[in-house]
């Protein structure tokens, strides 16, 4: 469903992603983990074209993601939802408006239809009562749940999460992870950049460990956490699992 072939991305002199290839199947849940600056977020951003790799190709459903090709690239991208570390809700709109903006503008849904769908998703993330609030009135965890609901309104087939709980107070983390876990159980294809090892272990089908822009180790979640093969992964896990 998603295929990266030898992608490389530099930021000035820093090699953020160095010849990464990976494939993700439909319904699979893959966690990208690794130390800060290991390139995991950049890999994720390359998948939906927020970053364009200098070399290598990204394929979604065997079609090359080329955003210069306008429409086709955009259609491919619209199959993917993206959840940011810092939510990026629109502060000038209410929660409901945040959710209905893209369905109305991009999918050309009617306002009432878009609102109906938005309310369904808000109910699912447990925030229907907040629909008329502005984002600044919400807690971090609520903001992230709204952001997830906003992505779901576009009816994505793949969800990409970029450290969705890293900006949250510890007690807010669980409510977001629960929403993500539910999505996973429903069979959504998910790629998650995360520091939540517990989540990776219980929810992920596969864990990819990156360092210095390279994939160091790739394994199913249980094996990765119980018997990591590489020394680097062992060292990393020792530091983060406590």
């Amino acid at each position: 469903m998603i295929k990266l072939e030898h992608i490389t991305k530099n930021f000035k002199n820093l090699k953020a992603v160095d010849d990464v290839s990976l494939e993700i199947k439909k319904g699979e849940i893959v966690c990208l983990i690794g130390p800060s600056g290991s390139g995991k977020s950049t890999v994720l951003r390359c998948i939906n074209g927020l970053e364009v790799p200098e070399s290598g190709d990204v394929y979604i459903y065997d079609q090359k993601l080329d955003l210069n090709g306008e429409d086709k690239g955009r259609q491919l991208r619209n199959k993917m939802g993206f959840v940011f570390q810092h939510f990026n809700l629109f502060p000038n709109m209410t929660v409901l408006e945040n959710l209905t903006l893209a369905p109305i503008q991009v999918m050309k849904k009617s306002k009432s239809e878009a609102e109906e769908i938005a309310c369904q998703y808000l109910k699912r993330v447990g925030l229907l009562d907040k629909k008329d609030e502005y984002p600044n009135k919400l807690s971090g965890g609520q903001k992230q749940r709204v952001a997830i609901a906003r992505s779901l309104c576009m009816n994505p087939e793949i969800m990409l999460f970029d450290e969705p709980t890293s900006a949250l107070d510890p007690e807010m983390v669980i409510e977001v992870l629960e929403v993500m876990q539910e999505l996973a159980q429903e069979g959504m294809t998910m790629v998650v950049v995360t520091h939540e090892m517990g989540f990776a272990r219980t929810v992920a089908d596969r864990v990819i460990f990156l360092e210095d822009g390279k994939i160091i180790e790739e394994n199913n979640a249980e094996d990765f956490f119980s018997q990591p093969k590489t020394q680097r992964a062992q060292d990393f896990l020792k530091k983060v699992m406590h």
Partner: protein
Amino acid sequence: MFTAFDKVFTPENILYLAKGALISLLIAAVSLVLGLILGILGSTAKRSKYRIFRIIGNVYVEVIRGTPMLLQILLLFSVVPSLYTALTGDILRINTYVIGAIAMSINSGAYSTELIRSGINGVDKGQWEACETLGLSHWQTMKMVVLPQAFKIIIPPVISEFITLIKDSSLISCIGAVELLKGAQVIGAKYFDVMSPYCVAAIFYLIMTLSVSYLGRYIERKLAASD
């Protein structure tokens, strides 16, 4: 010094100056609005991916910002009629208020261009990215998400620009428009005392600028409520 102070303070004279003040305010308001529209165009040009538009935007801002507004008003006042005559052979009777407002709009547009550009740059990059991932086009993003936030950022400097325009509207008196300052001069000439009407004019200017200032603070407070 204030020989005709009591004579100047007749209801008719005060009304005459008040009318002048209203004209000043109107000219400033029109210039602000047209200037903001030019500013949107200018900042769009400066942010364009096409070099030619960026050059046009830059030249506009630098030329207008780099020359006195008085000169721009005088130039437009002389260029428009002679251009009209050259093109049509007729003589154009121009409305000095209209020419003045146009010149001031063009001038204000250059400042607004920079204002709006900085406002747009002040909107978090994550907002663009969120729109990108939701499939919104560049223009949809601009219109629905970025500009509304940028306008909030630029309200304080826009208020300053309005105050500057109210004061600078006095410059159009040099092409014969009778606004507040010119009105004061007219009354001054009538009573052989310019000091008294100048002082009254100053009070009118202050009433206008302080009101706008207050209005600006009120709007800021209102908008801050959604922060």
